[in-house]
């Protein structure tokens, strides 16, 4: 399912990235690859932007980017 479906505080394992090109590369270099654990830390009012945690890194994403991250809830 999409990362946006996780609720605040929930964790998931990355299954794949639908993004392409530079964005995909950027997500890779932040450690968002298959098998990585990702946690939703916070989201804005309309869920337009969310804050996630991978390892010890906090990253902010727009929901359009978050939709491109396939996860399996834990």
């Amino acid at each position, binding site marked *: 399912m999409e990362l946006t479906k996780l609720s605040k505080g929930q964790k998931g394992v990355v299954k794949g990235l639908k993004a392409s090109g530079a964005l995909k*590369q950027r997500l890779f270099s932040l450690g968002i690859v298959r098998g990585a654990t990702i946690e939703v830390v916070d989201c804005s009012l309309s869920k337009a*932007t969310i804050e996630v945690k991978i*390892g010890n890194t906090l990253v902010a994403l727009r929901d359009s980017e978050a939709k491109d991250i396939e996860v399996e809830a834990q």
Partner: protein
Amino acid sequence: MAGCNSCEDVELQNRVKEKKENYCTFENSGKPTGLGAIKVVMAGQPNVGKSMLINALSGTNKGKVGNFSGVTVDSLEVCFEHHCHKFDLIDLPGTYSLEAFSQEEIVAKDFLLNEDYDVIINVVDSTNLERNLLLTTELLELNKKVVVALNMADEARSDGIDIDLAQFKKLLGVDAVIVSAKNKEGIDELLDTVHTVADNAREPNNLVYSDFLEEEIIKVEKFLSERGFSYKDLTNREVAIALLLKNEKVYKQIHENPIMVELFPLIQDALEHIYTHLETKDINEIKAIEHNGIARGVVLEVVNQKAQPKSLSLTQKIDSVLVHKLFGLPIFLLFMWLLFQATFEFGNLPMEYIDSAIGAFGDFIGGFISNDDIRSLVVDGIISGVGAVLLFLPNIIILYIGIALLETTGYMSRVAFLLDGFFHKFGLHGKSFIPLVTGFGCSVPAYMAARTLKSEKDRLITLFIIGFMSCGARLPIYVLFTGAFFSQSVAGNVLFLIYVSGAIFGLIMAKLLRVLVFRSKDEPFVMEMPKYRLPSFKLIWHTVYSNAKGYIKKAGTFILLASMFVWFASNYPKNSNLELTYQSKIEKTDSSEEKKSLALELKQKELEQSYLGQIGKATEPFFAPLGFDWRLSVALEAGLAAKEVVVSTLGVLYSIGEVDESSHSLKEIIAKELTLPVAVSFIVFVMLYLPCFAASMVFAKESGGFKYVVYLFVFTTTAAWVMSFIAYRVTLLL
């Protein structure tokens, strides 16, 4: 490069001294020759402390430090000596990976791939090793000499993170030193290690890939060795890895070698295996998976982290308030309001003293000068002009403290996050916040900071509206006018309102530009949120001090010259006829009232026919619909050189115009001479028109051409004129 680890060798010392001028002539020519110096480049992910480390290593303050990604946007060279050897150190912008994303990352990538240097210092954040190692593995694959600086040792310690250094070095096959740029820990050791590494031959690294990839690497390596192949200083294993991971440079250089005929099928075969194994044909994804595997493996073996780091938990707690769904934005606005309130209130406390001190100083100096013209030049020209600018130093300092806090605490990225949704509606990117807020200090670094925006069109839009974020140099004008026309109790609010309306106007213009000129697809928003850090007093002090120093220096040089120029241009040419006519008129009357008003009339007439008066008169029609007389017009025109000049010019013009020199402050004169609608109109014009000359030059460079400056000039002047006109007419009606 001869080893030079001790200064006891007298002969060596002499040689070093002799060669000194060749070593590193950074101070003299501005460009180090680097002969004999060890050229070291700092590479690392953003916000890991590269710039702070370069400051610690070189004992300078040249690198700009801040707690968000993308503080450094251009390379910076620093030279210094350590143990009688020259180091030529280059700080680069941070980059998450060598597959660069935004402008400033491309600067870093280009340097690392194409420039000549001896050693890379790979700075990593010890509290976030796993992600940092993704870049380290990429750097190691460049097959250059690398020393890893495990930075933030102090933070790692307090977070209960323990790193097994020996094991780290062994696993990766790389030299590494534990350092803390903040506490200046491990600095000497790092330099010594770099020195030793530079002096010795490069050692191949120890990266171990996953089994199936290793199998293929060994196959290719064996093939190369059997054919007696060798390429530059690379081992055959390194060549094999480069080929399998599709290193373009290596391919380019050996594709004409006959060995390729046999090699190609082998590699094709190997790649097929890899593709099926990883279920992807995207080489970048394959690299990412491999590098992640290595990073995870290394961290598992060398990092001992019992629980989630304290600093991270604290950050998340603070975030639950500061980026709160509902309160996040109001809290930000409150902070901004407080800042401008403080800028006005505290900044104005010492103003009276400074003002009367400057006045007394003028009188004092004036007392020693018998020549009328020279006295007027010094007192009305230089002291009034420079004094008018210096008066606002306290306000500027408070504004800079606010900006420094925003930059160093980690709050900056949070606001970008909070504003992204809002900015998005106006066709801007959340990250635009960083250059925009930098613009409240000065437009020059703001234009550079826009490099962190990936999309060219986002960047151009941001560049065009940065000028609407009133820079620090415009602050004196606002403080002067709000102080003159509003009561003390609301002036701070008015100041806040001025900044906010400038920003809102900028947003509206951004939307317009987006819809009419720079149409493009949305750029993704992916941004690291740094940990909150309590900024050290030293860091804030340094930022504020250097900005204050710059302001004073500018007042003492540029503004001083400009004031003299304005004085000359407003006193010459002299018209002796005019003087004579009035002189006789004054003598004829008896009433002192009339004498006074005649003298005033003379002054005004003289001013009007001076060079400056003529320029002002010529351009007055353009400004007349906005309510500006020729003096205000001239001040605005002078402000094209630098915004501080607006106030200094007004200072000179109004101080010459004064008849009885009974030390009226500029504020009082302005309150007397101008009306509220004119003041409002003037503020609006200042808020929106072209940034200073220096900023325009940087704008030209960053936007990619002088034609853009012409666009910017037309764009901002039109905007300023129209909005001032509206503001003037509306205020007149009130």
